[in-house]
């Protein structure tokens, strides 16, 4: 090889890289120059029922949570279509924005929805980090909000504990769950029914560490022991091979595993490939084996114990109708817990509008109407805890089993229900 030629090549190569990097940063700069949030929220106007009711949503359609955003959107569409996009005599208009799993981008889009589109109600948000970033602008704009996923505990709590500050707002409702509701009942249940020697392996980000702390908070008092050091792979890990041998070396009887989306799919598959599933049980929050990843995990997920506020196998008329309608409207799409939450969020909005007969001019009346919404949801009876404005959830303990064919499109495996909490779980009001 010609030496001088190589030198030039290398310099050009690096120049090319630099050019690429600068195109990317220019794009970011342009993004950052988009209209910023400065002006005060518009004064409330008297609204006649003939004026459409505008809903703005921020949900992920790209990046790691794209499939979750699609599920929620599909199910909201399904419910709104069932009422002809009409509630309380008003037409429902729906403006969608992409969450992109990015708090800064979402903030900008929220500003657009509030300032430019002048939406009457905000809904959506999958990521807890994003919902924390949007909370203050939503609160300041006095924007009625129905969150359809993001489960971070702080969102609906009051008071302070150490550095953590409750972010409760009277305008924000959460129709999904809190991480406390899902993971704290599991700790006690695992200690009683599965194993008392558990290692924790969780995605290393806010929601993962929060959920494992909630698990430990009831597992240890119930007589359980945490084995070894917590194993904390970064969010978005595709190859868990660096972490799985550490679990094997600690020889726990079971592993509390907090992962969701593609992380969950790869983790469970590789857990099995590394021979861990022979002697070690998997327990975790239900997202680990939800319908979005279960068909891909296949038999490697068999036997995993999880807790969640819903399952495809839940036997009630509302769930059966939901599964059937969804399969008919979106053939070939697997219905998952995120879809169920979108369906319920849409229904909350519709029921509240019906209750005030489309008149949202008195905001405190409209907020009272949301607070009072109750109906038969696919998860069971739906209502908000008026103190926290978080959904009250019964938690189901589930195990992955071979499907009895009740629900076809979830493939050959399903989350069979082993039991449930004695009473519905309320998220604590204070930190």
């Amino acid at each position, binding site marked *: 090889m010609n030496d001088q030629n*190589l030198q030039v090549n290398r310099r050009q190569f690096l120049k090319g890289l630099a050019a690429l990097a600068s*195109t990317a940063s220019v794009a970011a700069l342009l993004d950052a120059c988009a209209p910023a949030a400065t002006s005060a929220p518009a004064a409330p106007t008297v609204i006649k029922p003939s004026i459409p009711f505008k809903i703005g949503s921020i949900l992920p359609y790209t990046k790691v949570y794209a499939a979750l955003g699609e599920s929620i959107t599909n199910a909201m569409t399904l419910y709104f279509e069932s009422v002809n996009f009409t509630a309380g005599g008003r037409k429902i208009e729906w403006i969608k924005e992409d969450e992109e799993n990015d708090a800064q981008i979402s903030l900008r889009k929220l500003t657009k929805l509030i300032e430019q589109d002048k939406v009457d109600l905000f809904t959506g948000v999958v990521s807890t980090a994003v919902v924390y970033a949007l909370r203050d602008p939503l609160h300041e704009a006095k924007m009625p909000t129905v969150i359809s996923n993001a489960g971070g505990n702080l969102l609906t709590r009051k008071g302070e504990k150490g550095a953590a500050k409750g972010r409760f707002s009277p305008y924000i409702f959460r129709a999904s769950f809190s991480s406390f509701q899902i993971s704290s009942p599991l700790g006690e249940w695992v200690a009683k029914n599965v194993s008392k020697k558990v290692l924790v392996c969780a995605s290393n980000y806010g929601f993962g560490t929060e959920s494992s702390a909630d698990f430990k908070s009831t597992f240890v008092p119930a007589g359980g022991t945490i084995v070894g050091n917590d194993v904390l792979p970064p969010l978005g890990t595709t190859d868990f*091979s660096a972490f799985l041998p550490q679990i094997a070396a600690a020889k726990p009887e079971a592993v509390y595993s907090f992962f969701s989306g593609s992380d969950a799919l790869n983790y469970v598959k590789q857990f099995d490939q590394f021979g861990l599933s022979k002697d070690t049980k998997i327990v975790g929050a239900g997202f680990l084996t939800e319908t979005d990843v279960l068909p891909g995990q296949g038999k490697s997920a068999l036997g995993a114990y999880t807790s969640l506020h819903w399952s495809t196998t839940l036997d009630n008329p509302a769930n059966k109708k939901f599964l059937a309608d969804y399969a008919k409207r979106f053939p070939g799409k697997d219905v998952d817990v995120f879809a169920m939450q979108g369906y319920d969020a849409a229904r909350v909005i519709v029921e509240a509008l019906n209750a005030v007969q489309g008149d949202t001019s008195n905001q405190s009346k409209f907020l009272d109407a949301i607070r009072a919404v109750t109906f038969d949801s696919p998860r069971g009876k739906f209502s908000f805890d008026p103190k926290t404005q978080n959904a009250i959830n019964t938690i189901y303990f589930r195990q992955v089993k071979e499907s009895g064919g009740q629900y076809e499109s979830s493939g050959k495996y399903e989350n069979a229900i082993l039991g449930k909490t004695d009473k519905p779980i309320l998220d604590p009001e204070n930190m």
Partner: protein
Amino acid sequence: MLNLTPDLFLIQFLNGLAYGLLLFLLAAGLSIIFGMMDVMNLAHGSFYMLGAYVGLSALRATENFWLSLLVAPLVVGVVGFAVERLLLRPLAGRGHLDQVLLTFGLALVAADFVRAVPGWGAEVRAFPPPPELAASLALGSLQYPLYRLFVIGMGLGLALALALLIGRTRVGAIVRAGVADAQMVGGLGINISRVFSIVFAVGAALAAFGGVMTAPIVSLKPGMDAETLIAALIVVVVGGLGTLRGAFWGSLLIGEADNFGRALLPDYALFSIYVIMAAVLLLRPTGLFGRKT
């Protein structure tokens, strides 16, 4: 902090080796294509991703992993050939920025294409390993997946075959001469433009082969192209441009560094390979196997 027993060390070493050899399948093509054709191919990660998805469709149709391992590189190789002939050729002799824009644009198109194809889409897709390799093997007190051992064996075999092809055959001699001075090779009466197309197509096929080989370890999702392309670009910078040896040792170094970084210092996991790249750029700016001026 991890307590590294000999068993754990062996397993982590094998993990790094498997990852490194998969990177090699991309880096080899990237490096030779750049060395010879002076093209920085940012669509190389897309060939890898397309390979995995074409493999998935082939697997669904035939239920045979080995067939899909054969079909995907062939299909993607043809795509690569067409891309070189129809899109890159007209840009020959233009600056790198034009090529970067073209190949980056192709990568964006490929990403949207994968989303749009029914059965591929935005969801994560699992890709089961061949049943005969689905088991795990006892290594000391721990278990190791058989499929990863197969990846290591296959990767080493391919590296050796490529080394022999480039180092010992007439075709290899033409490729090496082309890396040194393509114009001169053309002047000697060799149809260099045909050689370019073939090298580009083989590079694309190798990336696709890597895609199918990786698929049973990680699952398929949009975005898998960018993650791997960045790692392969780092390998090329660390190993030195246009050399197969550089791509090989660079891949193994980056593979091991990435894996041990994750295992030993998980908080700094994503950092370790960039530290190596920075160190190599400072101490040996032409890469570990690039020649000094």
